[in-house]
């Protein structure tokens, strides 16, 4: 009994140092040597060197002249230090009411692509579907004084296809799309 206890204590301390400190530091060393930008979260900077987000982390866009991102349940919305889904069930009245409210507030006609009015799992989804981006073109085009065809071309250029042609789903990064929008067609 005592022998097992001593072994347990020693084994715990030694392997805790090896697996809890040496191993993550080793991985960090490799990551920082060969993949520095990715290990640091692929931050996006503006012209003044100010961090304006991460390529991987969604941001809220709610103004009419921007492509909207999905609803978010992370903190007060897109809180990247407090990720969360809504966890509302399929028969939740709160979910049904929230969706109907979102649908009613859309100014574009036609059924709303479902990802645009549903909260993501992380609350930080950086993407919307190509359908959701195209759906918003007719709202944004007049506000940016650009033709719908030009805006559709901008969306098309920002579609990320399936990885290796098969994995995942086609998607549009909202932050990247809106930055491209601001650059090409600044709001008045």
């Amino acid at each position, binding site marked *: 009994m005592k022998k097992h206890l001593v072994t347990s204590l*020693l084994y715990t301390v030694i392997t805790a140092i090896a697996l809890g400190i040496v191993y*993550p530091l080793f991985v960090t060393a490799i990551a920082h040597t060969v*993949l520095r930008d*990715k290990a640091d979260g692929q931050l996006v900077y503006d012209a003044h060197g100010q961090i304006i987000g991460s390529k991987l982390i969604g941001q809220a866009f709610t103004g009419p002249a921007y492509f909207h991102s999905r609803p978010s349940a992370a903190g007060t919305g897109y809180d990247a*230090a407090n*990720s969360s889904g809504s*966890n509302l069930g*399929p028969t939740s009245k709160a979910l*049904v009411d929230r969706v109907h409210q979102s649908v009613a507030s859309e100014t574009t006609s036609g059924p709303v692509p479902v*990802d645009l009015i549903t909260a993501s799992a992380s609350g930080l989804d950086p993407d919307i579907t190509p359908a959701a981006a195209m759906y918003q073109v007719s709202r944004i085009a007049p506000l940016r004084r650009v033709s719908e065809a030009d805006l559709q071309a901008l969306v098309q250029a920002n579609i990320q296809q399936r990885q290796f042609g098969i994995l995942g789903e086609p998607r549009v990064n909202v932050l990247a799309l809106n930055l491209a929008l601001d650059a090409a067609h600044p709001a008045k």
Partner: protein
Amino acid sequence: MTTNGWLQIGLFCILILALARPIGTYLTLVFERRRTWLDPIFAPIEKLLYAATGVAPDEEMRWTEYLVSMLMFSAVTAILTYLVERLQGHLPWNPQHLPGVAPDLAWNTAISFTTNTNWQAYTPETTMSYLTQMVGLATHNFWSAAVGLALAIAFIRGIARKEMKTLGNFWVDMTRGILWVLLPLSTLLAVALVSQGVIQNFKPYDTAKLVEAQKVTATGTDGKSTTTDVTTQSIAQGPVASQEAIKMLGTNGGGFFNANSAHPFENPTPFSNLLQMLAIFLIPAGLTVTLGQMTGSPRHGWAVFSAMAVLCLAGVLTAYWAESQPSPLLAGTSQTASATQAGGNMEGKEVRFGIANSALFATVTTDASCGAVNAMHDSFTPLGGMVPLVNILLGEIIFGGVGAGMYGMLIFVILSVFIAGLMVGRTPEYLGKKIEAYDIQMAMLYLLIFPLVILGFAAVAVLSPTLGLSSLTNHGPHGLSEILYAYASATGNNGSAFAGLSANTHWYNATLGIAMFIGRFLMLIPMLAIAGNLAAKKSVPATAGTFPVTTPLFTILLTGVIVIVGALTFFPVLALGPVLEHLLMAAGKSF
């Protein structure tokens, strides 16, 4: 449902099938202490570790001694985690200056990670320091997986050995599992994940200036709404990749962030998603091959693999179908799959994964006892959400957790052999061992503890408005599913959740902690007792009357026994939860 969706699911199945044999063969070499190509690196470390900790590697243990070593080690590691959590405010690598964790939550979390459950009643990025995540939690991802692996190997030895009293040496099995299997695989996977964008750093959280400032209106407890300007976004950082890798390989599932593998920093691309799903099944699928090789009956290993594969496919098909269906409650939305959208039920799912990958991940993570999620199970359709729930309730033996799935499955194998014996009226045999009353008593004990804990605690919670029901986010039948899922997940050591349940209360922290403890340690005792008993038995030669365990007929019988035992135990409560909710949703009801 789309062609591409089926292709992705098919690709995953083919890869698992292709990986099972090489990994299983490698595991056999490692645990039979034969030569491998990693010996030059790890053999000296192994020797040093035994010398430093006083382990005599050639001393074999009886099942009781194996059990005591395992329990002692688990207790010591649990206490370490509890202390690190409580003291993190005074320890380094805490750039956000997070305070010590509250006692009941720290207890719950220590049990949770020790038992390979990784139930998380907290939001990691606002609760746990980098040091706690690394030393307090990620270490358990290695330890608890290695313990599970060791126990499965001990059980397989029990079947394979003849007239022996011992099952191997716990410390040797642990050490070889960590050094030869988990550590090298984790290192490789961690670097692969970083290449996809999983972060790995020790920075304090970054602050980004939002491109479009937001006004956020919140309604306070007094009913008044206040509007605040939000101009910045705080972006959580941390050593994620190193933890993410072992979280999946060890079927632990405890996320570095609250959103787990749905968080873009934990699972940024569809390829990282594929790697994570493969990592969950890699060792459990390999163990079926190991079972066949170590018991000298490779075809038996594949017969068990086939039963697992059939049940896995049934789950994936059901979940994918259910999640692709449009919700009748969400009028005015476009939910049809097309070239430009996945459609279906997108609440609680990420666009990059869509429906197929979310349904597949949910099935895989609950077939195994992983519990990582890339979509929120609570927001699944009633029948889609029933798939992960049923997977857990069947005992997580469809490939299952690292080790735990294998020995759980072997209990069902013994039960199947017994039932086959009853049908023909002979003493049942399993790979040359007579299965007798003691073995069946222990197997039934194993099978009964599980539903007793789940249904017992869930019944109390459902009947108590203050303790149980006050934590619900969703009402109606879905509320029952939330509570049932919590106790199933804890007892099954899964760790995923219908996360609408606010589980960080004294009641849930305490009872879920007990459920996790029983689900891991009390169920081990009958399992090891069977192993010890089998090892001591004589081997009898197979005769014409022996029921072969290598045939498709055996696979069908085994699958049938699993489904019937699960259905007899849990059908009533499933009818009141997900099934009822499905019918009410079709009738347009919401709660």
